[in-house]
Every structure is written in C-alpha cells, then in structure tokens.
C-alpha cells in the first residue's frame, strides 16, 4: 500500500499546486504545527503565517503562507490561501517587502490582540527566512 495522498493548494487567482504523490505535509495550523499523513482524520483548520512543508518522492518543497484554511478529507488535502510563495524562488526583495509591511502594521496603535499576534508571528517567520 502506498502511503501517498493528494494535495491541492489554491489561491484566488488559480490552482497553485496539485500533487498526487505526497507522503507528508506539515502545515502551520493556528494552534501549532500539524503534520498530516495518509488516512488522517477529516479535519478543518486555519493557518497562521508560517511554512508549509510538502514531502514527496521528488523531494521536499517549502512554501511560505500568511493565512489560509486547510481541509483534509478522504485523503485529499485542500489548502485555500490568498498569499503563498514558493520559498525556492522567493526573492529576498519580496521577503523584505513583506517584512516591512508586517512591521508597519505591527507598529499601528489601533491593532487588536489577535491581529497583533498574527503580525508578530509573520515577522518572526520572515526573519528566520533571511
């Protein structure tokens, strides 16, 4: 029995990534990192800023996401996100831009706790990328 399942990452503009042969995916779920293997229980959760790690036969791929929803059902993993970047072809300048934007937002005075938490998270992740 193969231990592989299907992943689909979509953003509003298009289908970002479809892969049939992934063995493990680690997503930055809201309450902590979550590893998903084949035959995981059906789950819906949402993402905080972080790195999605997709492991398949052809090697590991890393993606940076800022938000999104994960749905896993019948060995189909769907990730809906509005902002996703492939780390291997992500420019330093894009990183810097995102970091700058996040820092600006964190500096605002009218930010609420949850948003503040997310922005801090974003900054932290972006800094580790550099």
């Amino acid at each position: 029995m193969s231990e592989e399942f299907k992943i689909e990452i979509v953003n509003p503009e298009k289908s970002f990534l479809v892969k049939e042969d992934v063995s493990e995916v680690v997503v930055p779920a809201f309450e902590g990192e979550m590893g998903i293997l084949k035959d995981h229980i059906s789950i819906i959760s949402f993402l905080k800023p972080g790195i999605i790690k997709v492991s398949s036969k052809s090697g590991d791929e890393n993606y940076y996401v800022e938000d999104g929803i994960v749905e896993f059902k019948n060995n189909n993993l769907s990730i809906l996100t509005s902002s996703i970047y492939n780390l291997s072809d992500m420019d330093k300048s894009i990183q810097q831009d995102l970091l700058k934007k996040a820092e600006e937002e964190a500096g605002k005075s009218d930010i609420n706790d949850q948003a503040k938490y997310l922005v801090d998270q974003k900054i932290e992740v972006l800094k580790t990328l550099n």
Partner: protein
Amino acid sequence: MASLDDLKKRIASVKSTQKITKAMKMVAAAKLRKAQESAEKGRPYSEKMNNVILNLSSGISDKENAPKLLAGTGQEKVHLCVVMTSDRGLCGGFNSNIIKKAKSYFSKILDENKELKIITVGSKGNDQLKRTYGDKIIENISFKESKNANYFDADKVGKVIIEKFEAGEFDVCTIFFNKFKNVITQIPQAQQIIPLNDEGNENSSDESYEFEPDEDEILSNLLPKNISTQIFKAMLENSASEQGSRMSAMDNATRNAGEMVDKLTIEYNRSRQAAITKELIEIISGAESL
C-alpha cells in the same frame, strides 16, 4: 441631395469609425480570452471555500449563537446593494442590464418600506444610478488603475462591506453582477451574501470533521474571507462579461458601419453619374440648337 464633396467626407468618416470599432473588437477579443481564463482558474477557490463553509455550518452546534454573517441580524430592515459595473463604456447592454436588474430590486425594497443603501463598484454604475438614487449611494469604489480584476481589490470591497455590517449599518447585503455564459449572453445576477444563503445546497456530507480550533472560531474567521471571495468571483465574471459584451457590440458596430459605407458609396456613384449625364445633356442640347 448632398453634394459630391459632402458624401465623400461622410464615407471617409464612417470608414475611420469602422476602423476604430474593428480595433476595439480585436482588443476585446484578446482581453476576453484572458478574462475567461482567469474566471475559470478562480473557480476552484470559491467552490472549495463554499464547500468548507457548508460543511462547517452543518456541523455547527449552536445555531442561535452562530456568527451574524452566517445567520443574519434577525432583521431585514436595511438592505445594502452592491452594484458592480465596469469603468468603461462602449460595451453594449452590459451596464444597463445590471442597472435594470438592480433598479427593479430597489423599487421592490422601497415598496416594502425598507431602507436602501447602495455601494457602486465601477464608475459607469455610479453615473447611471446617481440621477435616481443619488441620496441612497453611500460609497463609490472604482478600480480604474488596475488592469485586471485582482483579489486585492476584491478584498478592499469586502472589508468595506464587513466594516459597515459590524457597525450595524445594514442587515442584508446583495451583490449585482453579470454572470458570463458565453460571448453573446451575459445574465445579470443578484446574489445575497449576507446572511449567507445556501440555496438548496443539500449535498453537504454527513461526515464529521475534526475542528481546530472550534467551529465558531473558524467560521468567524472564514466568513469575512468568503465575502471577499464572492466579490472576487463576481468581479471575474463581470470582467469576462464586459469584454464579451464589448466584443459583440463592436462587432455589430463594425458591420453597421460597413453597410453604411456601401449605401453611401452607391449614393455617391449615382449622384456622380447624374452630374455627368446632366452635363452631357446640356452639351448635346446646346449643339442641337445651333
């Protein structure tokens, strides 16, 4: 009858108009292909989003305390209508069709003595509506600078709507846009987005999901995103419809111009011939009288 010179000028002007409409048709055709493509590519996202929300709302434990975006405020007094039109004209009945649909909805609401608020997206809708409903328009959003429909713009509209909803400014929100069927047919649509209307979508599975964190929290995070997604979908459909509509309108215009040129050319040739005949008769009768 117009003189030969006048006819000549008119033929030239109709011909140059024809050139413009032909060029516009070509441009619209090229843009249409792109818009159609992105409308198709954007579909999975909104479909998946819908699915997840459906699954969530069927799994929600306490319907009474469901987020307001899903269940509504319990009242139906103030209606917000988001009318999405294009920023450019010369696209046939595209804008008028949306406006017509929206206006009939407006009058229905006003007949029921409910309050009406309007947000227009795109300047053409604003131009047409401000004459009759000027006092009802609370905001006009226009994306003249952005070339293609993008999610960032849709999100901006979504945020405006959610802000107003949370401030208690309205109870029900409906968006108006043109659904793209094919190049010659676009169907004006009214879609209610707040409270969420799961029209007969009963195929949600009974399968139980694990939620992390709990349903309510996910829902309250997801629903605002869904609003933006629905708006984005409407924008994509709209831009495909706009180009399709413009293409067929410009095609018609080109054909009409061609017919006009033919007619004017015949008239021109006839009057030229008449002038020649007249001159000949004069010469001949002059010769005969000698």
